[in-house]
């Protein structure tokens, strides 16, 4: 199983900060597609992914136990 995290407007669209999902062996871009099907209100434009708290590329593959987070453009500071 994997944890999938949503922040800011993504959390509002999904209605939850964390969901559990088996995305083992899938790439970031595949998981993004999956999320868009599951949550039609989800806008992943300009949204980066992080795997285990490090920015990931679209081709990176999730392993069992990995956490994936969707990171909208940041606005701290």
């Amino acid at each position, binding site marked *: 199983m994997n944890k999938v*995290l949503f*922040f*800011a*407007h993504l*959390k*509002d669209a999904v209605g939850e900060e964390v969901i559990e999902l088996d995305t083992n062996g899938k790439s970031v871009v595949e998981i993004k597609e999956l999320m868009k099907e599951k949550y039609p209100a989800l806008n992943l434009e*300009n949204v*980066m992914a*992080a795997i285990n*708290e*490090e*920015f990931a590329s679209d081709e990176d593959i999730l392993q069992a136990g990995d956490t994936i*987070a969707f*990171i*909208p*453009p*940041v*606005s*701290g*500071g």
Partner: protein
Amino acid sequence: MNYSIAKEPIIVQEVIDKVVQREAGAITTFIGTVRELTHGKKTLYLIYEAYESMAVKKLEQIGKEIKERWDGADVAITHRVGKLDITDIAVVIAVSTPHRADAYEANRYAIERIKEIVPIWKKEHWEDGQKWIGNQLETVAYPTGKPEESDLNE
């Protein structure tokens, strides 16, 4: 604990204390506060949200980058989350260096990098609505190098 996310108001002096060193002649601090007007629109308050564990890692990374670039630098950064009112402190960056020019430049570098890579978001609340604010740099989403000149004019 030089890099942290705070749920309570930030005490500036506590951040400064973390970078005091006998070899340093200069300490700069940057204090980001909630401004009432942005592009003429009146803000009532802000909500900051962070992906806390990753945010701390990214702040640590910024500190590491600074120490590689500016000899003898020490760095501490605290970013607040939760509801912030006008003039409340959102972020404090303290940098100490042996010479003053470095303290200014390294501090500036820290705030620009925070706005690029640290997973923290703000939601602005106005009288007529609210919105999660996107990339304030208004450039490509995640540049990996130093901020561009145009980013420095905000």
